[in-house]
């Protein structure tokens, strides 16, 4: 058949990504035969430069990974010429290479896309669903694709986040094995234009990772401060309030003041006593002398 649905997705990233993100990007490129790769973009350039890059590569969709602070990973999904686009925070990334993912699939086979019914309930989710279908779905009769349908991507909404899983279809009775990769998307904003433009939707449940870290630190600090306060309160309690005792007038009755001694003024320095190292020695010497005398006498 002829390849009619001309979708091309540009998958690339900014600088400063870590190994996990790099592997995730590579995995997405293997799984999606309608994708193209590009070099890392410098952070200095503005985001709308990406639109130009896409046009140069003749792509009409884009997946852009942005790493900040070497900790947080953001993902942009965009329809490049006119939009819309969405920014997500990516968490819990597991790659294809992890040994717990035992499934395998043909390289370039078309995926089945499975969505949670919640996607149909909210308009922003409906928009996201459309975006996912157009980006992740491999066009039919794409030259690099395989004609079989042997794996399924699932997008589920749990805990206000979108969970992505990839399963291999083993049997026709729907026994599945996970292939990988896996990640969790936390929606931040949806823009009308591609990488810019008015904000169509802002996720109220989203908390930036900085904020999250700050809150954690604050809570720890708060605990510590509370402990300090408790300690102080305890200290005050221990000291106790001083009880005022009234003066007892009868206390003074039995007091007899001591007699005053006459003040003696010494004018002459008193004789200094000889320093005796051994008090008993003097006595010993005396006794010996007496004995001698006694012996000579008697």
């Amino acid at each position, binding site marked *: 058949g002829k390849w009619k649905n001309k979708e091309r997705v540009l998958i690339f990233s900014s600088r400063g990504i870590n190994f996990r993100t790099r592997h995730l990007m590579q995995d997405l490129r293997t799984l999606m035969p309608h994708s193209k790769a590009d070099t890392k973009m410098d952070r200095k350039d503005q985001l709308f430069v990406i639109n130009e890059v896409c046009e140069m590569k003749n792509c009409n969709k884009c997946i852009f990974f942005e790493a900040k602070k070497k900790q947080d990973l953001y993902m942009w999904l965009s329809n490049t010429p006119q939009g819309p686009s969405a920014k997500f925070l990516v968490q819990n990334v597991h790659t294809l290479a992890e040994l717990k993912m035992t499934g395998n699939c*043909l*390289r370039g086979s078309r995926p089945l896309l499975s969505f949670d019914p919640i996607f149909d309930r909210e308009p922003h989710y409906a928009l996201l669903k459309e975006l996912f279908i157009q980006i992740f779905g491999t066009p039919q009769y794409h030259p690099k694709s395989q004609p079989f*349908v042997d794996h399924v991507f*699932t997008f589920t909404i749990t805990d206000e986040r979108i969970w992505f899983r990839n399963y291999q279809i083993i049997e026709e009775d729907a026994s599945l094995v996970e292939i990988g990769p896996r990640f969790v998307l936390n929606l931040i904003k949806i823009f009308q234009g591609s990488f810019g433009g008015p904000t169509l939707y802002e996720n109220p449940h989203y908390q930036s990772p900085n904020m999250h870290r700050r809150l954690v630190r604050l809570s720890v600090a708060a605990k510590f401060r509370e402990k300090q306060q408790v300690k102080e309160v305890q200290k005050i309690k221990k000291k106790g309030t001083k009880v005022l005792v009234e003066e007892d007038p009868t206390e003074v009755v039995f007091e007899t003041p001591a007699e005053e001694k006459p003040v003696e003024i010494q004018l002459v320095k008193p004789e200094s006593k000889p320093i005796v190292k051994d008090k008993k020695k003097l006595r010993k010497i005396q006794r010996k002398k007496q004995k001698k005398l006694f012996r000579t006498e008697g």
Partner: protein
Amino acid sequence: KDGLKQCLAEFRQQLAWVERLDVTLGPVADPVSQSASTSDAVDPENDFQREMSFYRQAQAAVLEALPRLRKLQVPTRRPDDYFAEMAKSDQQMQKIRQKLKSKQEAMERSEKAKQLRAMRKYGKKVQVEVLQRRQKEKKNMLNAVKKYQKGLSDKLDFLDEEQTSSQGNKKGNASQRTKKGPNAKRRYKNQKFGFGGKKKGSKWNTKESYNDVSSFQSKVAHNKGPGKGGRGGKGGKKALNKRPGKRARQKMKNRAR
């Protein structure tokens, strides 16, 4: 919100389902179902439950999509002779298989070790029990033999196996005890040689032995008897008790040699 809807309307592509291959379904009902009774919200912290819900959602999608695809004549099963590049290299799959195998082996080994340990413990217990039983039996046997020797019980039942009601038997025989004990000879010898105790004065005269005149033969003592076959009157007395002197006896001895 309206902006969203408008945007969606603009953005949406009208493609045949075959191109999109999307399915929107909730998870398959769980046969082991606590999930039906609990609220639909899967606890995201409970990893297993969460993953199972994802799995079931995928299953539902597959169960719905595959028949549709088959109708549209899109192949879903890979024929066995179709070799193409896979998403994970063969090397990777080997690694995975190795890991699984090693995990299984480790588990088996630990199971075996546990069983061995349990068996050894049990064996030790059994051994101890057997030894104790043997000791007990030996003790009982010896006691029974001693009793028999001492004349407390005249039954030779201990030679037979397993006296279960030995207690009852003892009480029965208490009235029937006869004093057999060892022989007179044995008793004399025991008195003289055995059982420690008085040995010093064993050859001295006691009152009983002094008063014992049973070994007195008056004819021998008064030399009145028929004098060894009746010799003559001459030298009878002396001849009877005539024992040759030391010298003569020694000569006899030497001559005999």
